[in-house]
């Protein structure tokens, strides 16, 4: 049967055709948008952290009693925490914790030029066991010497003179040049630090990850005390159970005048990086699955109906010598045309809606052409399957049927 005939049939049964078309268009709109929005998130989600997520602990505490001697408190905490049997290393961390930017933003600069825009960077200010706690592997240069560590009140303006940076940051700052011996300038004050070591990439900084600098980080052998935040990083033995969280909390509460806000595995901090956007992605995927299911059933229903009112026509066709496969092919082509029109319409609607979401509802939906094509092909295949189920029956209509009336 020629295409012209098929088009004629479509026009003749325009109401049903239109319903199938609209349904497919809406399904494409939903699924298309959901995949644009979810894809970006899930792609980020899968970036490896290279972290021992269940061996590193973030500890957040606050000292609310201003009579407490913070320097002494930190020394006591460090020795009490080291005494826990599961704990292998512990460091006071006066700036960021693992995947938790506690305050402000940490930028790194190549010069002291005030005009230079900084690069987002995770900056870890640590005490002597810091490098081991984070489990860093030094690939170039050396570790810190004990005399390079600075532990001072935040009002004393004493800073370390050296730092280590991650391979990714070294590449961003110095390209193919060696980073060793170069100077980096940290934070808004643009304090200078000489790079003595470069370590293998780890996903460490919350703000850095948000800015898509997954592996940018700097380790500085300095730790300042003075404000209310007193935070620690701990390394525990492999396979340590969750009970350690409470043990750490209890240990810290032995010192008065403070509150332990949270003790968590780095894994939890990592979850928090994505839980907002991944929840959004999951819900969108959920809605898409429902939409696809409902559409499939809808197409099966509509096509069954459309076939049932055309039984006579099909019977006549068969009586005139059309084989089962010809009938099947005709019906499939008819619906494939409808699906294509629907997908085309739906794709435009999806693009328009995506644009609306991005401009009005702050969604992060990047249109990926290959993803759009994938969605189109999948919906098209799905509609073909949905059509095949009722149509297969129709093709079996006996030619003699037509003679009944």
């Amino acid at each position: 049967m020629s295409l012209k005939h098929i088009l004629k049939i479509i026009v003749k049964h325009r109401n049903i055709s239109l319903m199938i078309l609209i349904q497919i268009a809406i399904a494409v709109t939903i699924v298309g948008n959901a995949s644009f929005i979810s894809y970006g998130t899930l792609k980020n989600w899968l970036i490896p952290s290279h972290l021992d997520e269940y061996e590193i602990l973030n500890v957040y505490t606050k000292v609310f009693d201003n009579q407490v001697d913070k320097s002494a408190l930190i020394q006591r905490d460090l020795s009490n925490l080291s005494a826990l049997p599961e704990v292998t290393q512990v460091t006071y961390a006066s700036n960021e914790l693992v995947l938790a930017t506690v305050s402000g933003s940490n930028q790194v600069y190549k010069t002291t030029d005030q005009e230079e825009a900084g690069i987002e960077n995770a900056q870890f200010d640590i005490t002597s066991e810091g490098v081991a706690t984070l489990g860093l592997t030094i690939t170039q240069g050396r570790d810190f010497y004990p005399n390079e560590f600075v532990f001072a009140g935040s009002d004393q303006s004493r800073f370390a003179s050296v730092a280590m940076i991650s391979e990714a940051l070294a590449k961003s700052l110095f390209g193919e040049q060696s980073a060793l011996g170069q100077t980096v300038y940290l934070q808004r004050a643009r304090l200078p630090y000489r790079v003595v070591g470069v370590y293998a990439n780890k996903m460490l900084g919350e703000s850095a990850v948000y800015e898509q600098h997954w592996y940018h980080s700097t380790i500085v052998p300095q730790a300042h005390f003075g404000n209310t935040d007193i935070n620690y990083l701990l390394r525990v033995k492999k396979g340590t159970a969750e009970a350690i969280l409470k043990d750490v909390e209890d240990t810290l509460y032995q010192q008065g005048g403070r509150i332990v806000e949270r003790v968590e595995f780095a894994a939890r901090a990592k979850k928090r990086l994505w839980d907002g956007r991944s929840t959004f992605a999951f819900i969108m995927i959920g809605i898409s699955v429902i939409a696809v299911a409902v559409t499939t059933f809808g197409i099966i229903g509509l096509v069954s109906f459309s076939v049932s009112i055309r039984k006579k026509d099909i019977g006549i066709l068969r009586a005139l010598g059309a084989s089962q496969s010809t009938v099947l092919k005709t019906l499939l082509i008819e619906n494939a045309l409808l699906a294509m029109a629907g997908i085309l319409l739906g794709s435009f609607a999806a693009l328009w809606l995506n644009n609306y979401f991005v401009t009005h509802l702050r969604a992060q939906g990047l249109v990926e052409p290959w993803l759009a094509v994938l969605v189109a092909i999948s919906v098209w295949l799905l509609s073909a399957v949905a059509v095949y189920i009722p149509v297969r029956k129709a093709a079996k209509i006996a030619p003699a049927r037509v003679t009944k009336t």
Partner: protein
Amino acid sequence: MKDLVQLAWRGLKQKRKLTLLMVLNLAIGITLLLTMGTIVTRSGHSPIDERADRIYHVSLNFMDPDYENRSPFSVPPLTYTDAQSLYADWANHNSVRLSLNYTTSFVIDLPDRSVRPVTVEASAADAGYFDLLQVPFIYGEPWRADMENTAVIVLDRKANDLLFGGENSVGQQVVINNRQLEVVGVMDMSAYLRRFQNMRFRGRVNDMAVIPLGYAHANNIARTGYMPCRTKDEPLRNSYRRDDVQGLKTAECGYLHAWAEFAPHNQEQSHAELTLWLRNYAEQQVTQGRFGHAEPFYLGQLATLNDRMSDNLYWEQIYLKFAYLLFAICLINTIGILLAKNQSRARLVSLYRALGANKLYILKIQLLELSMLSGAAIVLGILLAQFGLVAMFHLALYQADYLADAEQVRRMYSMDIPFALQAAMGIFIAIFTAGLYPIIKASRTAPAAQLRG
């Protein structure tokens, strides 16, 4: 009528599979629509909704001319001086009640350190805070207006549970910043889903304690909320937050949220009076080199802010839009299934017609049948939406990394019966309208037309 019902019921039972498919299909669409609709609706609700059209957030825009006011929620709070002027002229007005507060956060400890201390989100406020919110008290009562400078505190039920195990703590002492305060009352904020007091409208936590504004200023309780400063004062902002309360009193930094509630009988007049006052005040300040901004003041109605708030739930709005799209698919399916069903029983209808039933009668049977069907789908949809809301509640907690107050979030994700009924009505009308085409088509079946063969 009885015949009609009977015939419609029989109609439902013919082709049971199709009937079931139709109910399920509609129920899925309704479930999603109700779940997402409820979340968006509940988000804009609070116990003081009835008064929300009479309550206004008062903002004087002291900021530099290039200050960009991005949304009605980011209008600058009042500076100390402006708040004083406002208070001096309006505190004793007959039909306007004024309340001032600023956002803070502190750790509450007990003098004997018998339980672990608790970090709380809190407000420093005048006694008008309690008039504004009309928050119920479990124990004790608010402090009196003449106790602005005394060391007293009102705890929320959650803080009282943590510190005193839910016992009556009125008369007990707590410690904040090494100073003792006496608990005068325990309030219950659990029905207040959003912390609107400081214009943030956050839904995850609300005030867990309130202390008197005078006391807070005198003892320099930190200012942790939104605090825009004019460019000249910007560098000192952090010091104004925690240390320099005396400097803050003359600084051009806004941190005090003022709310005005107008008496119902005098609402328009009070609004006009306050507007006039704000305009005059701003004009008068221009002579002192202030108020160079093109918009010198803002009066934000709480009812409008509530509405705008739900517009800001970007993700939920996206879900809701998708729910509408999905419901559209379900409606199209309904038309399709109805057509299929009517096709398969065309003979029966044609027999009815042959036996004397007129078109109207056929129409009535089918409409009744459709009503029963949509009724069943709506009931099922409402039931399933309960599960939908539970699922969304758990996802919301997951999303907040379980740091949100679960009780408060749960309230936001629970069924809103008036909304559900309203939505059900709309859904019913939609199904009915969609169903008209196949039904009218069926009623046009000629008598006995299908009875040959």
